[in-house]
């Protein structure tokens, strides 16, 4: 990844926050909402974009008869995030 071809998914703070929050493991929508302090609509829209880009996988289940949506990072999403962090690191160190 180079400075001039940073993927669009990192242009939004909310998308970046959602990806970072999922690095440790899958999270439910309400957990992500709590971590990112965002609204339902905004978070839902950004998560859909990430899903469309192949960064996230969505799993819909029923817990105590209530629907629950869980989000997890794909291997591709994890790799892109790692590349992005490496890029930030190299910018700070003055290599880019």
């Amino acid at each position, binding site marked *: 990844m180079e400075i001039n071809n940073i993927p669009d998914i990192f242009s939004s*703070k909310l998308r970046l*926050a959602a990806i*970072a*929050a999922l690095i*440790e493991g899958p999270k*439910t929508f309400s957990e992500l909402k*709590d971590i990112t302090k965002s609204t339902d609509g905004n978070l839902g829209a950004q998560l859909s974009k990430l899903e469309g880009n192949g960064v996230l996988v969505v799993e819909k289940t029923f817990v105590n008869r209530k629907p629950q949506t869980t989000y997890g990072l794909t291997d591709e999403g994890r790799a892109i995030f790692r590349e992005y962090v490496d890029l930030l690191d190299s*910018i700070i160190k003055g290599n880019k």
Partner: protein
Amino acid sequence: MDVNDANKDIRFIKDILNKTQFDISKTWLFFVFIGVVNFLNIMAKEAGYYILNSAVNISKLAWYVLRSADWVAFLIISVAYFFFFIELRKTGNDLSKSLLKMWGCLILGSKIIIKVFCYFLEDGYVGLNESFVRVTEKFIYFILIEFGFLTMGILVHDIKLICGITLFAALYLGSLIGRFAIKVGTIHGNDVIISAQDLVMSVLLSLGMILCGFYLRHRRTNKGGNQ
């Protein structure tokens, strides 16, 4: 993107990671609740001693009510624990859930196991002195609670929590070795005395728990997770 932007993004990512990995703030109300119940239990017992002291005749029933206060508090905490656990299962992270499970075992499970264990020490096969068994029972319980706080402090890398609980441990051991006793009430001219280590234990389980709960909440608000 320049160095400033990169730094901002790195800080932002770190904040989110800290929130995700070390956030146990959702357990704050559980600790406050336990602390409040224990505090009310202490107050109820103090009021009980006062009422019994001013009563002309002390009935057996009144004694039973006073002596069952600990079990009533235990029952309330047990019921509340399951409500907190169900709530946290929906929204909490893995660390919070694991910590709540651990506290469930320490506060609720251990109390029953220790009681049964001490019953056999006292009445059953060993036949040890009653006061020695009581001190042992409370000592084991204190060690387990200390272990809970210490584990929590280490898991979330919180030096303040570790220092606070170490201070309580030092106070407890000091009062255990010093064998200090404190008068907490009088019943018909007879002093009701508790040992200083029991007082330290009561403070830890009431005010200590309340402080811990508010500290966890404050910690999340101000630091976004990790210290």
